[in-house]
């Protein structure tokens, strides 16, 4: 009953006109910065922080949180339309989202992304409300060995992202792992593969790589003179632009998968939205009846990661609000904001500031509904953008890519990198190397290396530390994923030998 009382009280707080306006402003702003690649929620929240000191803290928190989860709604838009990931958590959405757009189903993908975001986002709020404190305690059992298991499992998903050739996929993945090592090493403070370049000391942002390989590479491939400049098909009529009932039925499992995986990984302070989107995509493909169609434009391939990266935001608020532990940069700024406003975030926070906690929870229910209502009407608007002919479309993609990469750190060096990775992406297309494993290796490599080294530092170099229960299970699944394709191949050869006609 405590929960019910709290929630009723929370709605009373969130429904005041001022707080409703804050919620709408936050979610709208979130959608906009989500759509724009480059400018992420962390930078936006940081910029608005000084402004919020003049506001009522509850309203300000409702607004800043709105930006945080609203950005995940908008993040898929450019992934689907232009193959330019708007946020790092929307990189996987490019895989099937952009292919759907090429088939003329951009509207369905955009719509499904909004619906999945709504379902998983709401699931996340329910979970935040019901199980936050015990779950936060459980998450503390997760440390370096467990993170290593999780990252290794994520990396084993390369098997699922591979196209024709597993060898090529593995090669691409290893290049990604290598790129992840560039920069200053956390443990020794020495620099690796920086070739004396100060600009490389901070490492290479994976959004730069993803935009280069996906978007710039794609544009270059489409510029080849042998290909007729194509205008993407956009169906007529509003009804044909939105997802069908059949689409929604096909995504039932994806909703569940995205919600649960996103929330659980979100709660872990060392993981994050990007990893949860990759893992949920991998699971979706692994359990699918038609895994071979993934990457060619299946709607579940959009619903699962887009759901996951929304449930993830609610998950990330769990350690923040119950323990005062931020999992990422956005939550670190929210933590600082709470201190600036005079709150004491920590284990006693919910107990001592129920108004803010329940007001925030209630506002997130409202915010998710507002985001759905805001995003669905935008679907036809965005989908019709694709009617543009190639000579207008491709320069626009390049423009968005350049602005996105540049605005991240105002660095011309990054634009050079973008061009380099664009060329790499083009070459990979030409030689039939899948680009998703490269980005996967890059996203997971850094976290995986850190987790392994931390685990070994904790155990004085004893590898047995990885034999704790959770890492054992995760590593076993990873090993299974890697081995299964070999058996399949073996089986196919065996069948051929038994029955030459197969």
């Amino acid at each position, binding site marked *: 009953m405590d929960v019910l009382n709290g929630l009723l009280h929370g709605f009373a707080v969130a429904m005041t006109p001022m707080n409703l306006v804050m919620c709408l402003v936050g979610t709208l702003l979130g959608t906009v910065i989500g759509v724009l690649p480059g400018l992420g929620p962390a930078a936006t929240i*940081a910029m608005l*922080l000084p402004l919020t000191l003049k506001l009522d803290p509850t309203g300000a928190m409702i607004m800043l949180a709105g930006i945080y989860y609203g950005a995940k709604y908008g993040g898929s838009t450019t992934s689907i339309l232009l193959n330019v990931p708007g946020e790092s958590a929307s990189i996987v959405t490019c895989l099937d989202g952009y292919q759907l757009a090429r088939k003329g189903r951009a509207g369905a993908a955009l719509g499904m992304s909004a619906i999945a975001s709504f379902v998983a986002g709401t699931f996340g709020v329910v979970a935040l409300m019901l199980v936050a404190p015990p779950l936060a305690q459980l998450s503390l059992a997760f440390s370096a060995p467990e993170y290593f298991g999780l990252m290794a499992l994520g990396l084993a998903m390369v098997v699922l992202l591979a196209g024709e050739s597993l060898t090529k996929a593995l090669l691409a993945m290893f290049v990604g792992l290598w790129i992840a090592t560039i920069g200053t090493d956390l443990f020794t*403070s020495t620099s690796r593969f920086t070739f004396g370049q100060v*600009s490389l000391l*901070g490492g290479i942002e994976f959004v730069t790589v993803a935009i280069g390989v996906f978007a710039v590479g794609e544009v270059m491939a489409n510029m080849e003179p042998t290909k007729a400049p194509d205008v993407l098909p956009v169906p007529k009529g509003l009804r044909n632009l939105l997802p069908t009932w059949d689409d929604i039925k096909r995504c039932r499992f994806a909703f569940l998968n995205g919600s649960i995986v996103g929330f659980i990984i979100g709660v872990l302070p060392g993981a994050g939205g990007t990893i949860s989107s990759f893992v949920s995509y991998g699971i979706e493909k692994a359990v699918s009846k038609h895994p071979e169609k993934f990457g060619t434009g299946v709607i579940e391939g959009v619903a699962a990661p887009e759901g996951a990266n929304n449930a993830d935001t609610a998950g990330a608020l769990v350690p923040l609000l119950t323990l005062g532990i931020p999992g990422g940069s956005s939550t670190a*700024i929210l933590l600082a904001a709470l201190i600036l406003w005079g709150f004491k975030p920590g284990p006693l926070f919910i107990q001592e500031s129920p108004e803010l906690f329940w007001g925030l929870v209630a506002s997130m229910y409202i915010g998710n509904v507002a985001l759905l209502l805001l995003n669905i009407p935008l679907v036809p608007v965005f989908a019709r953008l694709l009617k543009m002919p190639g000579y207008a479309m491709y320069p626009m993609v390049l423009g968005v890519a350049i602005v996105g990469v540049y605005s991240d*750190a105002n660095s011309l060096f990054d634009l050079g990198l973008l061009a380099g990775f664009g060329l790499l992406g083009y070459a990979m297309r030409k030689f039939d190397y899948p680009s998703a494993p490269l980005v996967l290796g890059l996203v997971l490599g850094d976290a995986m290396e850190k987790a392994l080294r931390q685990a070994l530092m*904790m155990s004085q170099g004893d590898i047995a530390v990885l034999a704790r229960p959770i890492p054992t299970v995760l590593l076993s699944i990873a090993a299974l994923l890697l081995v299964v394709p070999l058996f399949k191949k073996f089986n196919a050869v065996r069948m051929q030998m038994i029955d030459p006609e197969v």
Partner: protein
Amino acid sequence: MLAPRILKSFAACALALAAVGAHAQAAWKPTKPVDLIVHTGPGGGSDLLARAIVSMLEKEKLLPVRMQVQNRTGGNGAVAAAAIAERKDDPHTIGLMTSVWIANSLTSDEAAVTVHDLKPIARLMEEPAVFAVRADSPYKTMKDFIEAARARPGQLKQSGGSVTSRDNIIRQTLQHATGVKWAFVSFQGGGERLAALLGGHVDMMVIEPQEAGEHVRAGKLRVLAQIARKPLPGYAGVPTLKEAGYDVTPTPQIRAVVAPPGMPAAAAAYWQDLFAKLHQTDSWRKYIADNQLEEDFGDGASLAKSIAQIEKEMREQYTLAGTKVVR
């Protein structure tokens, strides 16, 4: 909204120029938005302090123009220092440094621009710290921890940042003074470090007093000792390292303002004066108290002395610990 403000400051500037004529350079004032360069991304320690400074300057109406935070991340401050040095002579750029910048120029080959290349403006504060263990830990005093580490060399673990971070410098100082050894596990973010301690994966952490305070209040952490010049108000009864029986003075963690090389003297004087005014405001006092920091304002000359002293101490500690010193 912005345009009239800029026009106004232009007008003010023109008036000032006309009025003082030949002495124009004595009264320099910023005439366009100012960049405040930090070395962490949004949400990092320096970034958050920078955002707080921006809002305090705004609230106290001390700065006639806008100040925007620029994140130049990477290389433990090397990228930010280089970005500041690139704006040579620019009076509209300042940066926020920490002791890490000094450590980094000692240990990194690539850090071509060091703190010595930048113009010191003002020292803002010193950051105290506390030694924390889990509330159910067998170590009730600093001595318990040190003796346990002596009994099991290398087995106890401390979570912290990189090897050049302040946490590790404190560890090395103490290890050297006591002759015992324990392990240091690096984590990228403060959240991960604290989670590792709360989850019992490491035994001890050197942590900011504000952050530890809430967990002490909730009965999750216990504080063994404090590192501060004056006893921290929130930690009455907690011994300093000296009181705990360890006569060491760990190198202080300072936060300070620096400027591009060649910034005109009038502009440097303006910025030094601005931060001197800021540190006397109520907003600043409240910020220092809320975050349990230590007020330690000093002008440019005093900052230059601090930097030289910190560098000397760090050089000694790195040499003792066997870390390669490149400069």
